[in-house]
């Protein structure tokens, strides 16, 4: 068998395993979502087809669509069918909007906030971690490591509240809440983007400070381990530039520990989003889950949990595939 054929087989075997895991987990998430409200006292219709403004007709329609008066197994099948069609029910709070629609209008805000902060935090974290490992016990290493420790024990929502107080209330540099100034009609796309940017500075800095820790500590420990390896010593002895040695030689073989790490980190990122969006009143999916819980808006709780869990699942799946593609050791595990 040729080399490429071998790689293709090992990759496709790995892919099959990951796809099976993806499907099983998807159905487990659906099942958690289905059974949790049904473990509560009362009938499911009390939780899932309710709302202060719901008309009797709409209530009956929801009961019929989700089969809330049918036996459990029939409800389960209907629930899966509905979810696969994007029907997550009606929100109490945002009546008459559907849960699906409410979540999808919030999603871009969260992706914007998290996408930018996550990228910046990872880059800063890895670079600082690599240099801290290189200059072990220097002032830079000690101060960045203590900072990472401090951030690890600090509640992110409190960090956000303090930022809001100092830079929003006291200094007045940034707006206090939301993503856009309410009631403003923008003259151009650029003006709107500027407003969005002004609103996003504080929440972004908060999330970045919160997210730098894990990549920093990971890069620091991986690079300091790698620096004792003979091939790094050789590279250094050859006189290769330090930057190339750290980033091309020392950091390259680390994708194996990274794939487990990504799963945990993604959960961490989502947690950061929930708290930061709540403090800064950022209209994203994270704040939506807070609103849903506050109002005991059960269809919305179910819907946000489902969408967040499935998004993280898919993100993990993609990351795993990329790692497997880049690093043969991953797919041979």
């Amino acid at each position, binding site marked *: 068998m040729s080399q490429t054929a071998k790689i293709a087989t090992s990759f496709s075997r790995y892919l099959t395993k990951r796809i099976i895991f993806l499907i099983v987990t998807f159905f487990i998430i659906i099942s958690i979502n289905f059974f949790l409200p049904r473990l509560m006292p009362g009938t499911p219709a009390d939780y899932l087809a309710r709302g202060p403004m719901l008309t009797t007709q709409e209530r009956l329609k929801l009961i019929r669509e989700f089969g809330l008066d049918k036996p459990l197994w029939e409800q389960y099948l209907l629930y899966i069918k509905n979810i696969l069609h994007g029907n997550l029910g009606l929100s109490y709070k945002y009546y008459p909007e559907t849960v699906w629609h409410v979540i999808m209008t919030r999603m871009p805000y969260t992706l914007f906030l998290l996408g930018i902060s996550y990228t910046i935090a990872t880059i800063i974290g890895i670079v600082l971690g690599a240099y801290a490992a290189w200059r072990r016990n220097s002032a830079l290493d000690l101060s960045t490591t203590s900072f990472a*420790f401090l951030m690890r024990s600090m509640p992110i929502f409190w960090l956000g509240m303090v930022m809001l107080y100092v830079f929003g*209330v006291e200094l007045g540099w940034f707006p206090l809440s939301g993503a856009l100034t309410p009631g403003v009609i923008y003259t151009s796309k650029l003006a709107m983007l500027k407003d969005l940017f002004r609103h996003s500075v504080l929440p972004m800095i908060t999330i970045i400070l919160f997210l730098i820790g894990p990549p920093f500590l990971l890069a620091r420990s991986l690079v300091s381990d790698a620096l004792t390896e003979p091939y790094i010593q050789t590279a250094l002895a050859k006189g290769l530039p330090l930057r190339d040695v750290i980033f091309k030689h020392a950091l390259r073989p680390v994708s194996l520990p990274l794939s487990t790490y990504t799963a945990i980190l993604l959960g961490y990122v989502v947690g950061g989003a929930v708290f930061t969006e709540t403090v800064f009143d950022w209209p994203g999916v994270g704040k939506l889950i807070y609103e849903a*819980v506050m109002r005991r808006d059960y269809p919305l709780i179910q819907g946000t949990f489902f969408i*967040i869990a499935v998004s993280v699942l898919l993100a993990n799946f993609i990351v795993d595939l990329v790692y497997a593609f880049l690093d043969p050791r991953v797919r041979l595990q």
Partner: protein
Amino acid sequence: MEIKGFLTFLRYNKLALTGTVIIAILSIIAITAPYITPYNPTAITGPPYASPNKQHLLGTDDIGHDILSQLIYGSRTSLLVGTLGALGCVSVGILIGLVAGFAGGVIDEILMRLTDIVLVIPYIVFVIVLVAYLGPSVWNIILSITVLGWPSIARMVRSYVMSLKTSLYVEAAISLGAGRSYIMRYHIFPGLIPLIIPVYVLTIVDSILTEAGLSFLGLGDPTKVSWGLLLYYAQIRGAFVRGMWWWVIPPGLMITITGLGFLLLGTGLEEYFNPRFRK
């Protein structure tokens, strides 16, 4: 002997010593809370929204509760949920890790896939949803932390068991006729305890932060005073907009200091038990 050795270690490791001192002080505060608080934390003892003054060193909240007394009592909730939640995670983690590692085969496969699944569902969101359904109480928060916080510990315990299982001295013991319980008692447990103690202390940090976060989102136990709940009320009653920093800064600082205490102790214990970490 173990304790004496650790005390010697503390003398040289200033960070671990700091952590120990922080935890000791907090424990004393939590235990003696009824004797050192100026007021009953749940009684109305002053005008609402009072600034710090002689009667109320940290002012009062929107109802007229003494903030300092709430702060002192809050240590109880934090330490209770922190230690018991972490205990739950560690117990479930050890159990699943041991079973998976020992049984191998299909059972191992099932348990490890279960671990992967719990790990892939975002922890905080899952805890929020679970507590929202179970109802906000200290015990439900501890239960939810237990149900969702065990996977990484289970993985660690399993890989430890696996490495022992293939080690020569365990193989030798088995070939000499050692039974399962013998191997457990003399080969697995002695190595497991130094592995688990630091992890337990570090998990306390996560449990404390989880409790604070849930309380901040309005999912805290309404019958208990806690730091997260103080911040929740501060947030929804607009403490900062009113410039009442004394309502917001102290609870967050207490959470951070408590977390830091356990983090420093946990890292110290890691170095103590696994000299590999000593640098």
